[in-house]
């Protein structure tokens, strides 16, 4: 299963589902990371974590452990 964490900078992916439950998952979805959304992986932070992605006109950062809950098609 490929997750957002597996994307390399510059690569694109489309969200299939967001795993887990509770506040983190809801926050991720409230930010527009819902199934069907296309994302571009922009970069790793200088220390390797978190990562930055681009989603429908804005930039978002999330930790790798959170990115790992976002499963791509």
């Amino acid at each position, binding site marked *: 299963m490929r997750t957002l964490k597996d994307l390399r900078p510059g690569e694109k992916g489309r969200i299939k*589902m*967001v795993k887990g*439950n*509770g*506040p*983190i*998952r*809801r*926050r*991720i*979805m*409230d*930010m*527009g990371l*819902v*199934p*069907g959304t296309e994302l571009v992986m922009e*970069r*790793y*932070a*200088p*220390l*390797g*974590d*978190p990562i*930055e992605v*681009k989603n*429908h*006109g*804005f*930039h*978002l*950062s*999330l*930790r790798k452990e*959170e990115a790992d809950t976002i499963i791509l098609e």
Partner: protein
Amino acid sequence: MEYKKLVIALAGNPNAGKTTIFNNITGSRQHVGNYPGVTVEKKEGKITYQGYEITVIDLPGTYGLSGYSPDELVSRNVILKEKPDLIVNVVDASNLERNLYLTSQLKELEVPLLLVLNMADVAEQSNKIDYTLLATLLGIPTVRAVGSKNEGTEEILQQALRSVENERQFPERVVRYRHEIEDELLYLRKQMGAAGQKKLEIAASTESGSAVALTYPSRWLAVKLLENDREITQLIATVHPEMLPDILKSRERIQNLIGDDAETCLVEDRYAFVRGVYHEACKAHAMDRLSVTEKIDSVLLNRALGIPIFLGIMWLLFQLTFALGAPLMDWIDVGVSALAGWVLAQMPEGLLSSLLVDGIIGGVGGVLVFLPNIVLLFLGIALLESTGYMSRAAFVMDGIMHRAGLHGKSFVPMLIGFGCSVPAIMATRTLENPRDRLVTMLVTPLMSCGARLPVYTLLIAAFFSPQAGGNVLFSLYLIGIILAIGMARIFRTYLLPGETEPFVMELPIYRMPTLKYLLIHMWERTWLYLQKAGTLILAMSILMWGLFTFPLTNAQENQFADATQQLESSYAGKVGKAIEPLIKPLGFDWKTGVALVSGLGAKEIVVSTMGTLYSITDSDVLAEEEDHAVQSFAQRVREQSGFTPLVAYVLMLFTLIYVPCLATIAVIKRETNGWKWPLFTVGYTIVLAWVVSFVVYRAGLWLGIGI
């Protein structure tokens, strides 16, 4: 003239420019406080406009209205319980899709709405927005605005009055979900006994215990039940406990029919609605508004340059706060001393003049002396936040801070802590998450602040060779950092356990801040400090003065022979003696105890108290050249105290760790809205100081180091 009252609440995403619009509407007539029981900030402003007295409430910036975060709970509770006449939803027009998601949820609360399309100038560079079509599609009147240029403020007020005076200008448009969900919403509303009713009245009890009936939109209640919203499920359970299995069944049916959980479907459908509206009303040009930001970020967030640039900016912030603040603080010092001198000259020496000069004027000086730091720090922080760099700083630092159980943004307050804990505690406001904030607040005092330095300087000069001095000093700073990280982990694991907070954070586009925003932000913080923390610091200073001044005479009602005797017999002296058995295992005597008690007022006072205790008068020291002054003072301390270098080191350690000064405690009280956390800080730092000092002292004795 009689004014009609009107309450307007501003809602919107973080970074949508809500605060700028709020400032434009209310000017400087603002009041900042906290919502009861939570650390969420409440901002209100009042204006009069065309016969109305309008109260404007600035709700916390949120991305949604789920019940998970305190900000979101506060927002929706204000809307449902305080029932403002109008919600003004400020959206970033250049990032409409995501911003309208909140709009879709505000619509469900079925309150009168007004949509303000802020940053329209930026948006129009890359998009052609059909404002009328947008209003029709959403069923909400819209106003175009550019907050940074104060455009649209008048229109917002005019439209607000129109919205309040005329019932409805656009036909209602409901956010529709897929039919499987709509079926369940109908079913749940029927179970609640609100089948054909828009509103449902539920009796609830307020915090004070009195019963009130609140009306909720029944469709919204059903949506929240499907979402498994904790607060609403509990609310329904109080009036319809029999419904709980029905709710579970509803969610199960959705899961079986759609193959996805209800919460996901609801969020998805809202986004589908929003995207539909967006694509109909907005046509994108070729230009990408993100391109400038992306270019800047390719440098600022660069894997090689990101950290050095971050450190450089932090260095500038530190210099701005402390280096630029130092001369201002000196002026305040000079001013306060001049005032004290003047008062002394005006009245006979006695208890009253001592209270005025040492207690009150000294206390006011103690409050004012932090002002330059606070003003400058918040200017710096306002700059970092309004330009958009603050979230980048968090992005760069989170890798390290997360390992300590902290957030990337915790770095800023901890760094400021090296200068002074008071502005540092206030700087934790940049952390949105209450648990991150609290942990940062609790450990920040362990960063060795500037007031501890005189204690180190004196004791190092007295007990260590110049060659060893640097290492001793460095070790103290390092121990502070290690303890802060260790305690943060412990607090995160045992004191405030639970799921780690999400780091899902927007990196907003870079913007030029407006001067007005910077000034208002700076003034707001400063006023908060003076009003809330300042009074408490003053009261504590007077209390400390009393401890060190009374009793005035000895048992035979005679005046004390000198300052040393007076201090020894004062209440503070008695406290010092009383705690001697407790600090004896650390190698301290009662005099050290008194000095430590005095350090509660401000750490640097430890030095002057030791001077008094060891009968070192000012004239002895001042007679010599400045450079020699420290030397001779140190020499006397060495001769008179009977400390070994080990005890001196342990004393420095203890000074580093134990109770941050009273001003810090006052600020923690102010920021956490209660006495629980400041008292906890006092308790844990004393215990930690004792344990660390004990271990070091015993280890030193056993190893024969420094004795």
